[in-house]
């Protein structure tokens, strides 16, 4: 169902953008850029989804429940925060891992914190792109002002979930 909602919204946006392109040259440029992005993305997606599937199969459910479950408290939040940066790969891996952890018994708050921490502090993104492109002090400043975010999400998460 979620997939269907997203598909309709994204599809609508794509159709709108396509209709904005004024002529054949623009449409060809758009399609060409789309083709090269697809060639770049699809192999990564296939690898990431496979890897996430294997990773989920390896997750020991009872341990996940103990470490990240409802009763894991602050230590669960700290652990979820620390797992975010070290998750390899892109968005598909992070979300698949969060989904697998939820299935294995992790709490909603732990999943929220994990996704937030990955979004802001993913080492893959920082080391491969942000550091080389933006520069060290810029990254350091951004990371510094972002540090409270996972905790804030955890606090609000407790209120809104409970």
């Amino acid at each position: 169902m979620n997939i269907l909602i997203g598909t309709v919204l994204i599809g609508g946006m794509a159709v709108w953008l396509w209709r904005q392109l004024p002529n054949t040259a623009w449409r060809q440029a758009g399609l060409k850029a789309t083709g090269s992005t697809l060639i770049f993305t699809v192999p990564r997606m296939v690898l990431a989804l496979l890897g996430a599937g294997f990773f989920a199969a390896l997750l020991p459910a009872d341990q996940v429940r103990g470490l990240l479950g409802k009763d894991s408290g602050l230590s669960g939040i700290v652990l979820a925060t620390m797992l975010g940066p070290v998750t390899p790969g892109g968005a598909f891996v992070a979300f698949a891992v969060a989904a697998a952890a939820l299935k294995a018994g992790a709490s909603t708050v732990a999943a929220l914190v994990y996704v937030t921490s990955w979004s802001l502090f993913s080492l893959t993104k920082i080391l491969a792109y942000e550091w080389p492109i933006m520069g060290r002090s810029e990254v350091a400043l951004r990371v510094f002002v972002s540090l409270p975010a996972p905790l804030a999400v955890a606090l609000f998460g407790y209120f809104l979930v409970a």
Partner: protein
Amino acid sequence: MPRDAPDSTLNPAPRKSRWLDLPDLPPAAPPRRRLIDSGILVLAAFTLVSGSAVLWRDGLGRVLPVFGETAWFLAELAPKVVAGIFIAATLPLVLPKDRVAAWIGHDSGLRGLAIAALAGTLIPGGPMVIFLLGTGFLGAGADLGAVVAFISGWSLLSLNRTLIWEMSFLPLHLVAIRFLVSLPMPLLMGTAVRFLINGRGR
């Protein structure tokens, strides 16, 4: 015989974009990215190691279903991925980069941060596109506070990623809570950066 064929089909006026004021010719294509980079190698190693671990611990009977589930999931995602990638690839071509920079400069205040955060939320694309746009904005006169708001908006609120990936994997209420709680964060982070740099927020 068609009853009411519109006259315009005989002599069509050039179609004007209603929202985007685009020149006749698109910009040159961006440079090609390397298909094999460190990112895909790390990913391949991760997949190979976890796959081997499952094979070693549980045998082939546990490995093959993962292939099947992945193939099914990919088929389900395919339409959305193709549409999303079309948007991500085409939007950078049509964005008015010079005007964007004027909106999010040093003196843009909270409004500039909000625009930057909104841009991060709406502009689809991977880290390469976003960080390159970020330095592009910096070079064109945006301040670091606005660029941090932009990057944080993308990191936390990216509509493309939320709609394509997050909602495909995670329950709707979790996605909604995360999105709502994260909504003010890019503004707070951008303000904090301006505060740290200037000694006072603007």
